[in-house]
């Protein structure tokens, strides 16, 4: 068990997401940065999609009630274990009774606390992810609170201290064109790539809102409700794009100019409020190459872990 002794930011249990239930209106949920989640899990000998605590920007304090290997990935956190510094993307073993304190994110938005064995909350519809809107999954279907006790699954009790290369942060996000790309004016399509977009502070796990020169359609477009997914760049009448993310609803009605390359979803999630990003349109082949690069990174961690034992 791991005991939550303090929490100052939205924190909840997320895994790789809940798939196969969109036709009931049930979204995917899951970690905002699934590559960071996978990196942490591989480092600890877990399945890539094992459940971890996701926390946004702020702090959380956890007390280990048993010896537990753990690591922090995603956002770079200022953190300490019984007062000793803990570095992101390094694996440690906490002893029974030790306190892990994540003070604040220094870089990036979403941090992951991964533990050997993963967090063993009940699976709901094939996933341990918290669906915050519908209130199920994760730990009692809600954000973590002071006093919560989180069960840990069966995993290693002792692991050597090993570090891996962190995932670099980026200010360029790759997109592939979506079904209404051609319906946008030439200026709108140019703006998408030449504009510097600022992430608005009313963004969240459901969607990231950006400000910049508006994306205009060639002519008004009447859209009927249709499926959307994490990564969909939808453009409401304001012309300011909203990129849907992990907690996206399953259907929407706005034109879709593009979709974030699957490989870049986690990198986009780590952009901070007020930061600027640029978008670059690529083809399906280039998007596949980016996915292979992520896969190569994760395979490399697996090799390091195997060598370290």
């Amino acid at each position, binding site marked *: 068990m791991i005991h939550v002794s303090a929490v100052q930011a939205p924190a909840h249990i997320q895994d790789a997401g809940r798939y196969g239930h969109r*036709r009931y*209106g*049930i979204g995917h949920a899951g970690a905002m940065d699934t590559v960071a989640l996978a990196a942490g899990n591989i480092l600890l000998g877990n399945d890539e999609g094992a459940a971890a605590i996701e926390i946004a920007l702020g702090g959380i304090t956890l007390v280990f009630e048993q010896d537990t290997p753990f690591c922090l990935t995603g956002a770079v956190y200022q953190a300490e274990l019984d007062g000793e510094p803990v570095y992101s993307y390094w694996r440690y073993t906490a002893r029974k009774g030790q306190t892990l304190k994540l003070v604040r994110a220094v870089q990036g938005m979403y941090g992951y606390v991964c533990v050997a064995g993963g967090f063993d909350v009940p699976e709901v519809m094939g996933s341990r992810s918290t669906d915050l809107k519908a209130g199920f999954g994760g730990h009692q279907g809600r954000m973590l609170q002071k006093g919560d006790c989180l069960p840990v699954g069966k995993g290693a009790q002792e692991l050597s201290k090993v570090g891996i290369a962190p995932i670099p942060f980026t200010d360029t996000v790759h997109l592939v064109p*979506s079904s209404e790309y051609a319906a946008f004016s030439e200026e709108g399509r140019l703006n998408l790539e030449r504009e510097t977009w600022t992430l608005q502070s009313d963004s969240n796990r459901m969607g990231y809102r950006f400000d910049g020169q508006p994306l205009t359609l060639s002519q008004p477009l009447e859209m*009927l*409700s*249709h499926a959307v997914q994490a990564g969909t760049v939808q453009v409401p009448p304001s012309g300011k794009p909203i990129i849907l993310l992990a907690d996206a609803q399953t*259907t929407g009605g706005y034109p879709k100019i593009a979709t974030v390359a699957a490989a870049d979803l986690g990198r986009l999630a780590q952009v901070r409020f007020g930061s600027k990003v640029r978008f670059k349109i690529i083809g399906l082949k280039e998007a*596949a190459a980016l996915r292979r690069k992520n896969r190569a990174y994760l395979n490399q961690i697996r090799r390091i872990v195997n060598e370290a034992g």
Partner: protein
Amino acid sequence: MRIEITPISESALVCRLNAPSELGKQQKLWAFAAALEQHDGIAEVVVGMNNLTVFTRFDTDLAVLADKLQDVWEHTAVAANQGKLVEIPVCYGGEYGPDLAEVAAFHQTDIAEIVRRHTAQTYTVFMMGFQPGFPYLGGLPESLHTPRRAVPRTSVPAGSVGIGGSQTGVYPFASPGGWQIIGKTELPLFRADLNPPTLLAAGDQVRFVAERIEP
């Protein structure tokens, strides 16, 4: 009936029919969805209004799949009886339906007449989406079409029955909403512990039953 197929991402194709959305077209889309559920390389299928989206695995060749989809579409026959009939008990008006009086005033009639019109109809679930268990219902009579509220509420309680323009529906979860709220049901539209977890599915028929009417 031609279907137009376009990629929307690395792992999804949207299949679209010409507007407008009609029950007959929607019925063929449900049958199409059912035919695709077990298809190789397809991960999930979502029926929209007059469209359907196929989510694939990343190793699926979208161009090859698009050709297959066109073929399956052309060979899809519409089954006559698609869904089950579900009765939804509703408490209309009062604290349950704070906009009922306004809707009645808009249509220059009384609240009993609004409830009569709303419960006289059999609605069809055209699609599911937005929230877990949220049905997009077709069949609201024109005599009930009411503009959305000028200022949306920041939170509409779970179970609220509303009218928004030419649509009616039930919110399974508390949500911000601009629809006119005319009543509330205690019947859960979503239960995570059941399989399937939703009361309704695309193709089902819905009737609202007045449990009581409050001024």
